[in-house]
């Protein structure tokens, strides 16, 4: 007969987990701050939602301090710091939320049944909102982004392979240059392409726009690919080498297939980064009102559509700009979701 002794291993707790009492005190302070904020909001000039928030934001840390006053200076400082951090975070998310909400509200006004399939060929921007659409801009953006992807993704992945796989003498330098390249202002990339591609070929073209976008896309792709390639375990590489494979074979048949979804994530992140770039396209692909697939001519794009509609000052044109912004936001959101899906797939491996 054996005796089994059951021991309970202590569950690791996170340090400084709030006790229930602290939680209740915080909740009380929030409610009180909200009530007093609302009162101030009614009585004084701090009106509107922002006024309410501002008043409550200043009162909350004060109330928290008062609630904890009995527990000593250190605790009071700690609670005030927590309150200020929370308030600061909420303060910075309010404008971001406002962006999403405003774009959605104002953007949906411009939508009509054939908004996504019409273009502006026969419609002046100031025309009624039931005419015209953004098909031309979507086609143009799509074409340029595809070409930019084809140019930049191979170079980005090659730079990553050089840093992670080949581990050449210049790996540090290349990583440094790629990081520096990610800081090139988009308008400078546009000026550069204007001074080369546009001037050599004698005019604005979709090609030029795509080249400008690819310059901006490359660093994102390279850096993400580098992170992704580092995830491949060394065992896989050494096993492959032990079986007699050359490095090239190892890279192409072992490393890259292992992290294929990660590399796709890198490409999609790059696309999300450049799909809304405006400044370089002003200088390279310009704008065109009709749907066009000719890459040698100026072509429409969503950002320029927004930008040029906004510049007109006309009410309907401005509404169109918001509509374009909504579609652009939707595109960015879509690409962003794609990256999440692909990167969750790689984590599961």
């Amino acid at each position: 007969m054996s005796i089994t002794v059951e021991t309970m291993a202590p569950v690791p707790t996170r340090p400084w987990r709030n006790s229930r009492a602290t939680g209740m005190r915080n909740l009380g302070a929030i409610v009180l701050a909200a009530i007093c904020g609302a009162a101030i909001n009614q009585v004084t000039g701090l009106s509107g939602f922002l006024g309410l928030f501002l008043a409550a934001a200043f009162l909350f840390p004060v109330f928290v301090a008062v609630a904890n006053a009995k527990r000593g200076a250190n605790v009071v400082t700690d609670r005030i710091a927590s309150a200020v951090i929370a308030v600061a975070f909420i303060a910075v998310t309010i404008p971001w939320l406002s962006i999403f909400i405003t774009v959605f509200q104002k953007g949906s006004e411009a939508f009509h049944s054939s908004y996504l399939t019409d273009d502006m060929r026969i419609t002046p921007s100031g025309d009624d909102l039931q005419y015209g659409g953004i098909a031309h801009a979507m086609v143009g953006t799509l074409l340029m982004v595809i070409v930019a992807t084809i140019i930049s993704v191979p170079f980005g992945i090659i730079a990553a392979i050089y840093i992670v796989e080949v581990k050449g003498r210049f790996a540090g330098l290349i990583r440094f240059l790629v990081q520096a390249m990610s800081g090139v202002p988009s308008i400078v990339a546009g000026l550069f392409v204007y001074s080369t591609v546009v001037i050599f070929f004698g005019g604005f073209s979709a090609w030029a726009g795509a080249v400008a976008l690819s310059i901006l896309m490359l660093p994102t792709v390279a850096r993400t690919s580098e992170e992704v390639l580092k995830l491949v375990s060394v065992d896989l590489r050494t096993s492959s080498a032990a079986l007699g494979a050359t490095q090239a074979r190892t890279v192409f048949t072992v490393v890259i297939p292992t992290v294929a979804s990660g590399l796709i994530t890198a490409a999609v992140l790059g696309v999300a980064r450049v799909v809304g770039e405006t400044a370089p396209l002003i200088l390279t692909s310009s704008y065109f009102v009709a749907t066009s697939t000719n890459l040698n001519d100026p072509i429409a794009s969503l950002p320029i559509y927004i930008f040029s509609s906004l510049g007109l000052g006309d009410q309907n044109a401005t509404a169109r700009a918001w509509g374009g912004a909504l579609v652009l936001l939707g595109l960015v959101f879509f690409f962003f979701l794609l990256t999440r899906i692909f990167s969750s797939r790689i984590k599961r491996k």
Partner: protein
Amino acid sequence: MGLPFTVSCEHYGVQTTVPEKRSIENNLTRVDKVFQNLVTLGAFFSMVVLAAIGGFLLYRGFEIFKDFGFSFITGSKWDIGNPEDTSTAILGIGAMLVGSIITAIIAVLLSVPFAVATALLIEFYVPGWIKTILVSILDLVAALPSVVFGIWGYAVLLPLVEDWSVTIEHYLGWIPIFNVPSGIFGRSPFLAGLLLSLMIVPIITSVAREVYSQAPRDLIDAASALGGTRWGALRAVVLPFGRSGLVGGTMLGLGRALGETVAVYLTLNLVFEINFKILASAGGNVASLIATKFGEATEYELKALMASGLVLFLVTLLVNFGATMIVNKSRKIV
């Protein structure tokens, strides 16, 4: 699995000869040589692009530097004069350069406290699943196109900031930078800086978060075990540890703010005069200047825009080099 005793060969009269060290050869096959050389070649593409950007902008704008010399950077006047006669032109981006720096500094000053707070909140205050959500949100905001920020800043933020500016000027107008003698508020450096700060908070936050997450865990736990408060540990361990990383992240944000075009174009009124009154509707910005003047520029003016592009490129490159070096260094400590 070590043996419990050691065997000494000499006791048994066995002579051993130590074999000579085998030299390991690592000759690459021809395929690998080609592969490595090709990859190396491709990897230098980024250097080629950077060099080409600098080279071509210098080539196109060289005439301007030759004609104006240093006064192109210090002068604040932008006058093409007679379009037929380039010698009548007076071109200088001094006001624009100063304006760019003012706007970017406002953006950085406004964003750093919020970025630090957000980074601390994500790393040390919220449970794991909320952390995942918040990181996703920050990544999404970082990917928002600048034209979306711009259109929002113009339509929503502009009227609000105009109201606030009037109030600030009313109470703090005796401080020179808040004084607005012209009485015209609106598309001011403050508005542009505020909008830019919203754009760079995610950038600074993500760098700060990365550095803070590497803060020595044992020191934090020790602080907890000694009965210290959370803020005590953050102030004594995490914040000092992450200081240089935060500086690097801030400089990355500064670089982004300096080069931002469309958001500034829509929210800043360009005036060719150095102006430190941040609430007045008059400011300068190199990137915005290029976008504004490009449409109807004469050939000579275009060269001047190329030259301003080169100046902007060099300034942002310098800031980014510094930022990258600081960030990489703070990564290496760990």
